[in-house]
């Protein structure tokens, strides 16, 4: 009886360890694929003004950023709407939004610290990637946090749309698709045609990934990073208001229905 219990617990632990190992191997593969692609592109010789180290740094940092952005908020919100749990959330003293934000952030930080930093450190050593001066790192971090806030608000606001759309998976897929296209998380915006690049400047997504990363890479002068931070703040405020507006609307329509 106890033996079975021990075996079960061990298996569970084992499972976790394997999962972590698999995940790390998978993340490495992702970075390796990116690096091979950049190498092949540079070998072809049509790109002259960007060097290998910059592209590798970009991909490694982008992998960290996307690790921090992982989110299940849309699905969880959908679940709460479906089961009616959301009614309780209206009367809770703690805001549902911040509860999710810190919950998800904690989880993601755990992953990024546990494996992400390790991967980053090793890749920075292998490819001897340059690390910027502490001041730049600081600005990068501020801009990264603002970026996370922007993305979180986008995810949360889109998650709230589930109230009308009924299904969370697909609202999230749409958000993910837009993010992939316009943020520069997969391919740096340098490679985008000019018209698309200027479109990206008008959308919030590039302020989550491309702009913070290019601050890290030192591609922005002082003038520019101040502008980036200001625009990020603007987006945070705008999305915050949009979310408030939606939340009020949902609250009132739920109360009307519920009586």
């Amino acid at each position, binding site marked *: 009886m106890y033996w079975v219990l021990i075996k079960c617990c061990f*298996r569970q632990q084992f*499972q976790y360890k*394997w*999962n972590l*190992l*698999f*995940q790390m*191997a*998978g993340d490495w*593969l*992702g970075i390796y*694929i990116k690096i*091979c*692609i950049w*190498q*092949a*592109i540079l*070998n*072809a010789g*049509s*790109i002259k003004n960007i060097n290998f180290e910059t592209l590798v740094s970009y991909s490694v940092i982008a992998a960290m950023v996307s690790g921090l952005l992982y989110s299940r908020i849309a699905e969880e919100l959908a679940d709460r709407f479906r089961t009616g749990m959301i009614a309780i959330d209206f009367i809770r003293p703690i805001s549902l939004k911040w509860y999710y934000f810190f919950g998800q952030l904690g989880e993601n930080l755990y992953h990024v610290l546990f494996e992400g930093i390790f991967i980053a450190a090793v890749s920075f050593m292998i490819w001897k990637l340059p690390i910027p001066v502490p001041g730049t790192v600081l600005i990068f971090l501020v801009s990264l946090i603002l970026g996370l806030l922007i993305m979180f608000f986008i995810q949360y606001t889109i998650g709230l749309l589930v109230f009308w*759309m*009924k*299904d969370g*998976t*697909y*609202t999230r*897929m*749409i958000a*993910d*698709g*837009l993010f*992939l*296209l316009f943020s520069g998380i*997969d*391919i740096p915006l340098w*490679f*985008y*045609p000019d018209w*698309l690049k200027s479109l990206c400047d008008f959308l919030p997504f590039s302020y989550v990934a491309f702009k913070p990363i290019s601050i890290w890479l030192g591609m922005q002068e002082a003038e520019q990073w101040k502008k980036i931070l200001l625009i990020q703040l603007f987006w945070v405020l705008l999305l915050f208001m949009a979310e408030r507006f939606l939340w009020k609307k949902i609250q009132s329509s739920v109360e009307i229905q519920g009586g």
Partner: protein
Amino acid sequence: MFGLYGAFAKVAFLTQLEYRGQYFMRMIAKLLGWSSGFILLVILLNKVGPVAGWGLYEILLLYAFDVLSYSIAGTFFMGGFGKLPRLIRSGELDGILTKPVNPLIYLICTKISAGYTSNYVIAGAMIGISLHKLGITLSLYQMIWLILDIAGASLIQAAGFMVTTVPAFWFLKSDGLYRLFYRNLTSFLQYPLTIYHGGIRFLLTFLLPYGFINFYPVQLFVNRQEGMPSPIFLFLTPFVGAGVFFIAYRFWKKGLNAYQSTGS
């Protein structure tokens, strides 16, 4: 017998079409999700030119083969095998085992997915456009090979789903395996395998034959013979597909036996 399975599949398919609004949303989401991959590829290659000698439309052809075969396999296998760990834990699988039908076919038919239709359209169109832009007109003989290759590639993808999720019979969870050995390893396929280290090519040819999904068969149509020990590799996809699917089926049987003999 086939009538029965057909009826299961039809019901499963139609249930998903029932909620029009939701189905429409799902189509848009999938359309956006999958076409964004194509769009990014077009953006990048338009800027940087050919990668390892492969032009934009050749690489799009590779990608389209991957997406199309994934979607065909996904239609039949994703529903059942993606949720296999959950089916085992919730006991739903036990219900299936009590039915007097082949459990695999039952699983496939009742969990058939209507969500991949948009992918057929995107990937099919991409294959058409790429062949057109490359100035390739398929002869009847090539047309037959195209169909055989897509069928073989879909079997390889399906075997990939099965082999990486069936260990759930022993471990109850298999998400990690599935992510690494299926998701992550198939992401090599987006570009010609010649850009990676020889070891990766070996791995994806002989150990986990994902290379036969697109890299080898596509070269028949674009007139290349890269990264292969012998030109016979151009024609192996349908055989590899049948072979690995057979192995995957045996593995599923084994898993099912192990599951049943635990007695619970």
